């Protein structure tokens, strides 16, 4: 069996043309990840450029309103560029520079990963091209302009369902065509080995900070960690440091879209079956013949028919739980957090907030829940207005 396995999941299922590229990436990562110069440069950027550590905020009003467990919010939305995506991008672009690459390419769904990649490329003087489903360029028009402002070229992807899955297809195709000077900055804990490991490692700063911050504030570990899951990078980043603490529940919140029973859903663990796609063995939304299903969620960032292989393994081993949150519940939570705490969450993160509302109220007052607020919701305001029937366009 090949490298990069999480149980039966993971692996390196990619065209031969890319094999040497992922082998070189794996070697470069092993060479640099513990190099003192690399580590200090990355830590410096995370602190002085991204604004880390991000705050761990006690949501007192929300806690009182729900009447159960104490709710803490991990404020990844306060990072530069407005989401957790920059943690991974800074690491990967630094690595790409060490590898002598001069150009980066990336897929994006909601645009958060694309904006983060364009930002890091601008900072480090790299050429940058972003692939984004045409439908998402409409849903997230402001982010397209933002990426262009940062000097990136944005390619609307017009194939397939014209969403995140197709953006990944097109970025893989582009990487196959031009691999010698180009690094593919994969945005989630997915794809062929070593990406799921690299992205998880760069995102694991989230969980390490939560542990230290909560020990300082409460003198104990949390009872449950909640994060939204598309590919699963912010969830993996939060969970990773706690996998060995069995008393801490790890809960991933998938996008049910209009409901897991409607067919218009992106909840992979709920409706998916084992498959091999986008370089990895994992669970996928697909039909009986292995054709990848068109998925749906109000959230462009969770609108993906698969899930990272380490999540698939956490599911198989029952170490993590995966729940589904509908569009309606996510939009309610989006408005709830805005009014209750004065924090507008990304619609992706609102899926985790929605489950926190259900869960915390059922838990004891002596218990603690940490919700990963993976991104801020400015980008979603117009879409939510339209969802509520307000004809607002950017």
């Amino acid at each position: 069996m090949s490298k990069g396995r999480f149980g039966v999941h993971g692996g390196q299922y990619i065209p031969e043309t890319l094999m040497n590229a992922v082998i070189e990436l794996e070697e470069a990562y092993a060479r640099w990840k513990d190099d003192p110069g690399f580590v200090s440069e990355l830590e410096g950027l995370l602190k002085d450029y991204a604004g880390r550590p991000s705050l761990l905020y006690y949501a007192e009003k929300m806690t009182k309103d729900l009447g159960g467990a104490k709710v803490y919010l991990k404020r990844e939305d306060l990072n530069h560029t407005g989401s957790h995506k920059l943690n991974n991008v800074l690491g990967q672009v630094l690595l790409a520079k060490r590898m002598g690459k001069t150009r980066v390419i990336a897929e994006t769904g909601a645009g958060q990963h694309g904006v983060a990649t364009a930002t890091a490329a601008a900072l480090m003087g790299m050429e940058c091209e972003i692939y984004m489903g045409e439908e998402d360029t409409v849903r997230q028009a402001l982010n397209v302009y933002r990426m262009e402002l940062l000097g990136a070229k944005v390619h609307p992807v017009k194939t397939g369902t014209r969403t995140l899955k197709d953006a990944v297809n097109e970025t893989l195709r582009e990487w196959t065509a031009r691999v010698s000077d180009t690094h593919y900055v994969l945005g989630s804990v997915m794809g062929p080995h070593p990406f799921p490991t690299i992205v998880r490692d760069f995102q694991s700063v989230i969980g390490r900070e939560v542990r230290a911050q909560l020990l300082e504030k409460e003198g104990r570990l949390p009872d449950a960690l909640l994060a939204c899951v598309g590919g699963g990078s912010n969830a993996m980043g939060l969970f990773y440091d706690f996998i060995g603490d069995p008393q801490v529940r790890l809960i991933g919140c998938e996008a049910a879209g209009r409901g897991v029973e409607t067919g218009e859903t992106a909840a992979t663990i709920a409706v998916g079956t084992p498959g091999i796609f986008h370089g990895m063995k994992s669970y996928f939304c697909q039909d009986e013949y292995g054709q990848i299903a068109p998925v749906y969620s109000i959230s462009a960032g969770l609108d993906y028919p698969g899930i990272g292989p380490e999540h698939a393994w956490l599911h198989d081993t029952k170490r993590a739980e995966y729940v589904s949150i509908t569009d309606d519940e996510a939009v309610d939570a989006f408005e709830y957090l805005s009014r209750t705490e004065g924090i507008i969450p990304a619609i992706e993160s609102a899926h985790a907030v929605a489950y926190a509302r259900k869960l915390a109220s059922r838990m004891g007052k002596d218990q603690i829940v940490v919700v990963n607020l993976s991104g801020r919701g400015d980008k979603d305001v117009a879409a939510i207005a339209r969802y509520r029937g307000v004809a607002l366009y950017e």
Partner: protein
Amino acid sequence: MSKRIREAFSHGKAFIPFVTAGDPSLEVTARLVPAMAAAGADLIELGIPFSDPVAEGPVIQQADERALAAGATTDRIFELVRQIRRETDVPLAFMTYLNPVFTYGAERFLKACGETGVDALIVPDMPFEEKGELAPFCRRYGVDLVSLIAPTSRARIRMIAAEAEGFLYCVSSMGVTGVRSRITTDIGGMVAEAKRASDVPCAVGFGISTPEQAAEMAKHADGAIVGSAIVKLAAKYGADCVPHVERYVREMKAALNLG
């Protein structure tokens, strides 16, 4: 090596056309395959359409979309192969992605290949390191698992060639499938490197469309694979594509063996 695959490389340089099964319909594919065989095709690649073919350019992506929309499924394609085998003994290779095979069940899929008369299987998103997914079942049911080498393979060529079955698929260019005006890779060098490790025939694919390109490839390799150029004819002429494809196959087979 399966008997029919060996046979494919025994009539001069092999011409290997590709069509997406079910584009524009399974009925047309059923007529197209025997017609290509009669026109001189030495081995025919039948594509099982996939929703997300990451190694394909726009021409074959659209063919896959058309075929799926017209109702092609893995089961119906096995039925198609049964029908084709009543008419021709031409060597047949399936070309598809790993997910349709894995989801169907690797053993069930390869058993059906063996029973219906599919001689080889090409899976572009399954590299050497992952071939354990299918290799045991290919051996059990007598189906050659075709390996690919690419312009970036370098030191990997010998490792891959040493275990190659059927024929070695030499990817001529970087990027995805599709017609190219020029092929700049040192194909001769790639093939020579492979031949040092194996005597398996080498066929070149990706980007070949004209008789001139085919003749050039024939200098270096044992055969030429053409996909997008044929799929374009199917797209242009639809149900009436058979005579156009036949003419093209005849022309290409002749060009390959001029030298």
